């Protein structure tokens, strides 16, 4: 290093500065090419495939029965009303107040006392990812010695988010491969064994990637134990409305925790349930003891957001507040979200039926037991590779299938492929 510097120093002194710049090698030449994102990389590979039979059950974006992306009617209507009528001024750092209000009503309940008492510190965030990252940065700043407990498995990006925020991770048992269901006793044991006052990441509904959710009774037990241990529950809710078709029902876990007196943190996303993926709209909220604390928390969240992006994008927030703020549009939205959820529930039933009809020796009831966009099929990475190389079916190597990518046109083909790669298992 020293030798190179002195050599290049001599070169600079001898030659003109313009030429001198060209003698330097890149400052970035030692950078390694980064691995492809395991989830988004699947779609890239899918797009590159020329086969007419190709199926993308990789990324979790909803498709209709023709395999097409959907823009909801309520969203189209909201956009018509917005276009041309709004200035594009900066939002406050904390985002659209109206959108945040509507988001809190959706998650905490229309008549929530916590909203009335102004006990929730909340800001608009860049979809679910942005909400999680902002919370992770907040956790790091105010609890620098804390860790985050994440379920095994969880959405791959959770690891990256808390890591880049400087918060170390621990895990708790969640998925039970043998039953393709919940490892409830393992989960409870890990909650118990974690030091008092640990931070826990919980998927509010439609666990990603497994689709395995605790039952209501199990949620109540989890809540009680977390209460006894004094843990902090942080909920990632990316699928409210999308899981069962009913947003109130999908918020049940959160409502149980609120009843039990937990002071929760919550990341909400409108990517899936309002189809606003690319608009990056979400909300981060922290329930506090009182209004004064909520105001302080919000102000500190803003201090973290300002050096990240200054203020959040306005367009998606306007769509959300227009839809949720207008009773007619909100009703339309509720209908449309139920249509999406029902189609997925229907595909689960059809996929399972097909596999059972094909005479598969393996059990497939987990397909209909699991909920939400994803199904943890139980396929091994090798079997997944065969699905891709032999059948041009694209999914993540953990065996996760996005049910939204299935439709009446391809479900038979996919069932057949699954049967082919698993029948000798």
């Amino acid at each position: 290093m020293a030798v190179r510097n002195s050599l290049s120093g001599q070169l600079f002194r001898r030659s003109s500065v313009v030429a001198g710049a060209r003698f330097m090698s890149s400052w970035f030449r030692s950078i390694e090419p980064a691995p492809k994102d395991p989830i988004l990389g699947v779609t890239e590979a899918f797009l590159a495939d020329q086969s007419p039979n190709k199926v993308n059950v990789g990324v979790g974006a909803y498709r209709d029965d023709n395999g097409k992306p959907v823009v909801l009617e309520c969203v189209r209507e909201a956009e018509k009303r917005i276009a041309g009528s709004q200035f594009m001024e900066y939002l406050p750092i904390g985002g659209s107040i109206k959108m945040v209000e509507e988001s809190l009503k959706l998650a905490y309940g229309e008549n929530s006392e916590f909203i009335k008492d102004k006990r929730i510190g909340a800001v608009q965030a860049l979809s679910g990812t942005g909400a999680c990252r902002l919370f992770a940065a907040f956790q790091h700043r105010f609890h620098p010695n804390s860790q985050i407990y994440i379920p095994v498995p969880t959405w791959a990006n959770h690891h990256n988010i808390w890591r880049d925020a400087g918060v170390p991770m621990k895990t708790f048992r969640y998925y039970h491969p043998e039953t393709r269901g919940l490892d409830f006793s393992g989960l409870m044991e890990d909650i118990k064994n974690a030091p008092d006052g640990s931070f826990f990441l919980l998927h509010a509904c439609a666990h990603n990637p497994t689709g395995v959710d605790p039952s209501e009774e199990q949620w109540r037990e989890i809540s009680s134990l977390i209460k006894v241990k004094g843990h902090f529950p942080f909920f990632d809710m990316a699928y409210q409305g999308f899981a069962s078709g009913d947003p109130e029902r999908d918020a049940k876990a959160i409502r149980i925790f609120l009843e039990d007196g937990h002071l929760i943190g919550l990341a909400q996303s409108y990517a899936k349930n309002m189809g606003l993926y690319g608009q990056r709209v979400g909300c981060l909220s922290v329930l506090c003891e009182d209004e004064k604390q909520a105001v302080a928390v919000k102000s500190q969240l803003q201090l973290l957001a300002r050096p990240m992006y200054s203020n959040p994008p306005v367009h998606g927030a306007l769509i959300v507040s227009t839809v949720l703020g207008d009773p007619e549009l909100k009703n339309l939205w509720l209908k449309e979200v139920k249509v999406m959820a029902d189609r997925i529930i229907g595909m689960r039933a059809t996929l399972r039926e097909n596999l059972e009809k094909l005479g598969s020796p393996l059990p497939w009831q987990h397909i209909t037991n699991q909920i939400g966009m994803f199904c943890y099929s139980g396929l091994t990475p090798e079997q997944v590779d065969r699905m891709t190389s032999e059948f041009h079916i694209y999914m993540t190597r953990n065996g996760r299938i996005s049910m939204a990518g299935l439709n009446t046109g391809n479900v038979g083909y996919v069932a057949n492929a699954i049967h082919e790669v698993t029948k000798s298992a």
Partner: protein
Amino acid sequence: MRPPVIFQTTPFFSSSGDRRLNTLAKHFLQTESENNRNMSTSPTSSHGDSVFAHLVLAPEDPILGVTLAYNKDPSPVKLNLGVGAYRTEEGKPLVLNVVRRVEQELVSNPARNKEYLPITGVADFNKLSAQLIFGADSPAIQESRVTTVQCLSGTGSLRVGGEFLAKHYHQRNIYLPKPTWGNHPKVFTLAGLTVQTYRYYAPATRGLDFQGLMEDLGAAPSGSVILLHACAHNPTGVDPTAEQWEEIRKLIRSKALLPFFDSAYQGFASGSLDKDAQPVRSFVADGGELLVAQSYAKNMGLYGERVGALSIVCKSADVASKVESQLKLVIRPMYSNPPIHGATIVAAVLKDSDLFNEWTIELKEMADRIISMRQQLFDALHARGTPGDWSHIIKQIGMFTFTGLNSEQVSFMTREYHIYMTSDGRISMAGLSSKTVPHLADAIHAAVTKAV
């Protein structure tokens, strides 16, 4: 059917609580006494204690807080000269015609969807943004040595660039001009870099402290990152001359310093997109590497849509592609992928020659109005015989004027004249109109002649 929402404040030992505790007991292998110890030792286990109880109320953002204070003021003569957002002669925000036209097209096009963008954003947008700042014929672009990623306006581009450097660059120091935009130090500190400063503004002349700047950059350790305002320095409005830029460039290259340009006002400073990009282009022409953060907040009036781009010019195409892959790893855990709306508008404007031309005309109108406000304010102070040399008002460039007023004078102007500006004496010329210039001139005059 919606279940009723029940919010009993459940006392800890109600019967349902007892039942659940009993169920829980089977998960505990410990004795009763250990149970009790667990329940009493954790400070967070009692009902209602927040883990964030120790937080204090954060101060308002010094820049954005000005608008909040302005909004609260009931006075009919109040003037907001705080945040740098363009206003028309009527004092209204402006959405450009080209933007409105593209918006209408987007809304009425049923083929448009809202799918996730790639992590790096809209490909067209990235390509066109690079062309805009580097010039379409730039050798760096021809040779595929530039990687460009869509980010959340200028702030987001700076933050992503900063985090990338903190992860992959061998030097942690970034030198910021003194003064600089208030958010710069926070962005880079949170990104993981160490902030240093170099002399920039000379209060005595209200111009550039060129000698101090050259001395400080000359003393910086080799390889340090240097933040440069591409044009229309914020907050001072003081830019180096072309000759001074050339000296700066030679020094930076000879010391192997890494330039990071913040370009928030291209086209807005002089009215010419190409002229305002000259400093950046000269640093590309010498074959060296650099970073540049672009914002479309002001020059395309897209403030709240958060549209910007980070470009990194590398020595080779191979390095550029590796850099791009690593940039994705910075972005994914921050917000996964950027917002679609604003970038789609920009790409449509940049791509279509009619829209592009119309944009340049609208941009020049905004820049010209600001230049005219500078002249009017200068003339008004001259007419009032306000003591002091006010020529810096017409010498400085871009949206802001660093008046030279101190914080007491600023407070006085807010109290007595309802003028809202940042306490460093910076005023946004974009917030002025022919009608309001006299009021501001009166306020400045009063502050300078009355206040201690």
